[in-house]
């Protein structure tokens, strides 16, 4: 790792100032992507601004069915929150399946969505749950937030503070793991809101990162059942193809994972 300067500010303002004051600074939350990248000399930020000491960044609050999760909340905390599990078990289960215990106890939801790895799990949940991402400057709808592979609507220096969403009536996530990295090779989050609206979001498969599958949404809105997806053809255009899975296999897995997610959601 190249030399870097570590800061742990105690306010959002101080964090923003620290970012602005350095040549090439990066926010650090759980560091589960950034630190390995730095160790491999693939990233060399001159300063790391650790956001975990900022008040309000850690924790889950639930008011009625409105859920708010602080950006620096670990996957383990999301997975083990009884309150969250009571209103949205799908998201708790997703968090329980990220990486391994060491990753889950360091990695955070804000770090994950700020990085927007195309194989990360959380982006699919944010889209399917129609979540809103609150930054130190504004609130952004998830639909507008994820703009491409490793790309988001965040401006330079802008920091994710929390995510919030209304708990769905039903939701679940099904993931096909990459056999090597065990990231999502294809992951599908399905959610049905109280008014019968359905969202289906796919991660791990799209060339531009997470995306919605409208045909599946329509089919499930009409009939919430795995069988409702039988007639859907998933187009392999625009899907990733690599040494682990072709676009065609991913297209197939999208449908299989969607059906399994619907089954899991009940």
């Amino acid at each position, binding site marked *: *790792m*190249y030399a870097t300067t570590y800061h742990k500010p105690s306010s959002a303002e101080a964090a923003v100032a620290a970012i602005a004051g350095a040549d090439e600074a990066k926010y650090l939350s759980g560091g589960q992507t950034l630190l390995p990248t730095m160790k*491999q*000399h693939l990233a060399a930020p001159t300063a790391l601004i650790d956001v975990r000491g900022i008040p309000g960044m850690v924790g889950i609050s639930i008011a009625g069915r409105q859920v708010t999760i602080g950006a620096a909340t670990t996957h383990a905390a999301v997975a083990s929150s009884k309150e969250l599990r009571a209103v949205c078990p799908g998201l708790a289960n997703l968090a329980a399946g990220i990486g391994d215990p060491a990753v889950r106890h360091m990695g955070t939801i804000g770090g994950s969505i700020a990085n927007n790895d195309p194989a990360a799990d959380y982006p699919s949940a944010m889209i399917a749950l129609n979540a809103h991402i609150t930054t130190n400057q504004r609130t952004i709808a998830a639909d507008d937030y994820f703009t491409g592979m490793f790309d988001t609507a965040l401006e330079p220096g802008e920091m994710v503070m929390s995510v919030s969403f209304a708990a769905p009536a039903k939701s679940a996530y099904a993931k*096909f793991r990459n*056999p*090597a*990295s065990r990231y999502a090779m294809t992951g599908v989050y399905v959610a049905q809101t109280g008014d019968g609206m359905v969202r289906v979001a796919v991660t791990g498969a799209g060339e531009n990162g997470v995306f919605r599958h409208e045909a599946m949404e329509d089919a499930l809105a009409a009939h919430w059942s795995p069988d409702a997806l039988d007639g859907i053809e998933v187009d392999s255009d625009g899907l990733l193809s690599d*040494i*682990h*899975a*072709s676009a065609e*296999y991913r297209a*197939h*897995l999208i449908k*299989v994972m969607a059906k399994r997610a619907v089954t899991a959601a009940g």
Partner: protein
Amino acid sequence: MTGTGIGASVKRKEDKRFITGKGRYTDDIRMENQAYAAFVRSPHAHARIKGLDTSAAEAMDGVIAVLNGKQLTGDGIGNIICGWMIHSKDGSPMNMGPWSALATDRVRYVGDAIAVVIAETQQLARIAAESVVVDYEELPAVASAEKALMAGAPQIHDNAPGNLIYDWEIGDQSATDAALAASAHTVTMDITNNRLSPNPMEPRSAVAIHDAAEDHYTLYTTSQNPHVARLVLSAFYNVAPEHKLRVVAPDVGGGFGSKIYIYPEEITCLWASMKTGRSVKWTSDRSEAFMTDAHGRDHVSTATIGFDADYKVTALKVDTIANFGAYMSLFSSAVPTYLYATLLSGQYNFANVHCNVRAVYTNTVPVDAYRGAGRPEACYLNERIMETSARQFGLDPADLRRRSFIRSFPHQTPVIMAYDAGDFDGNLDKAMAAADVAGFPARKAEAARRGKLRGLGYSCYIEACGIAPSQAVGSLGAGVGLWESAEVRVNPVGTVEILTGSHSHGQGHETTFAQIVSDRFGIPIENVSIVHGDTDKVQFGMGTYGSRSGAVGMSAIVKAMDKVEAKIKKIAAHTLEASEDDIIIEGGEVKVAGTDKKMAWHEVGLAAYLAHNLPAGMEPGLKEGAFYDPVNFTFPAGTYICEVEVDPETGVTDVVRFTAADDFGTIINPMIVEGQVHGGVAQGIGQAMLENVVYTDDGQLLTGSYMDYVMPRADDVPSYTLEHNTTVCPNNPLGIKGCGEAGAIGSPPAVINAITDAIGNNNLSMPATAQKIWMALRETGFAKAAE
């Protein structure tokens, strides 16, 4: 059995330090004046070096030196060699291209080292290495051995036209052709053995120390054979004469073959230590390991097998292309020849076998022995074509094999090997019973009710290990003898030290070697210590690979113990006034049979060193050495049965049962042997379903980290069912055959045979990933049927 002798599952003496973090590995060593090495490596698979600008690195504070290949060769450091001469069938010697530890004018694979930075810290060395500017002229590259043989392929070494290292054959081609032509049935198939990365838990490491006052070198390194390392470093690389070079392999965390060889980094560190006057440490990171540790396997073959009207085998003809990578590694030439083609007779009574092997340069990491080394490739070929034949003939695969089993020993195969003992029917019977083959149809039906496809596959493997009789391998081109040495020291207090040329890097020798001493003399195992891995301590040794430490290394200890026992008997007979022939050693006592006259074990040791009352003319002391040269290879064999369950929706496949019935000859420590089988089978399942080194066509390594190279994990492998069916090896004193590689050799065909059975499509190559299985299911229409 209880106790600490042969056959007891004694807990490993070495594990206390390993599991409490007290092991001492090469990277744990810190010298007073230690500096760190980092290598400048080629990002291109093939390029000419037009210029090298090291000025930015040299200008950095804390950089001690930046050294290059021209300086290295200028100082007389020799090229890296392959130590086993193979001649092509036209009589010409193999075409070995020059391999300098640091490239001077051309790089031939991604990772090829060009220069080394020596700096005060590891991080600084790495950053300085990144600042070295190399002016490359990129050249066309080729990664596939088949493509490298094609007309117009990039030429990798000037002295290997068409990239051909050798074109070798074994067996009688015309007799084999005639036998196939006369066969009632033949089956032909193309068989690929995928390329693997060895991935020992501990990456390679070296600490090189040059003592200018004595002009003496010490190398601490991750080696499976420190004496061989010293020999090669001295005799071929001209680092220092042997008496001025000490090589120490301390605790070593796994090797699987990859730590047999002497690599550019160790040579360079020794030389750099002399150049800089500093101790130089280098420890590979995992990325370097993927791009520099010798890879394994990578064969492409076409095979034809013949059967007579009774479905007994007649002949086997094989044509193999072996990918050697960019340079010939230390034992590379022997792997696809004498460690591969000589095992193609398998467990079967072939009258004729012919194999042609073309060894080929490509722009990839050098390929050499990896757990099994040639024998997994032979076994995979045999057992895939056997199972395939059974399916084509509509015969039970176990029954088809039985029709051709060798049942009389010794048995001379058509491809050099003379099998000494075995019970192939017994192995198959035990495996079938333990695997409950009879209950398979019911399990398959039950799985089908859950929408799963269940399959069962066999593998009846045989391998040759305990390598090797020196005269035999010498006649086949080996540049070394493959005996082993031991010294047994009985101390004046009766404790025993065994100095062995074998090297333990996970095998548990500190326990098993002590067991044979405890067993022989009846002394407590804690009174026996094993010394290995240091050329200054141990007389000599050929090291540990090829499952040789039991059959060869322990045999040397037995030979030395024979001498110790003879001397003890003389001393006791003299002291107790009895005949030597009446002396027995039992339970830690030296007794006169049939009387109550005896000496305690330690009293004999003390008497030998006091020398107050020894037989006339006897030298004092109680220390004996022996060199043991085996008279034949040993032939572990067995039957593996794998049962899988395939999810037709995704191709995801679980190994639900795996049964191994092995014949390893005498077993010293069943627990350790069990561990060897577990590890070997895990590696075999890894090869069959997960692991694969992938290059782009132009030689860029795509599987350079665990993000892309799939290592087997705990949840990829089942709980194993293990059986033993022992026939004792008649050719060594303990009757040992060896167990270190069998699991990795025997398991891949069992896995692929099971998966292809489940999916009803035999067209499946390793690694059989979920995607490949899903595609194979689509070919057969199974997926649709299951939906």
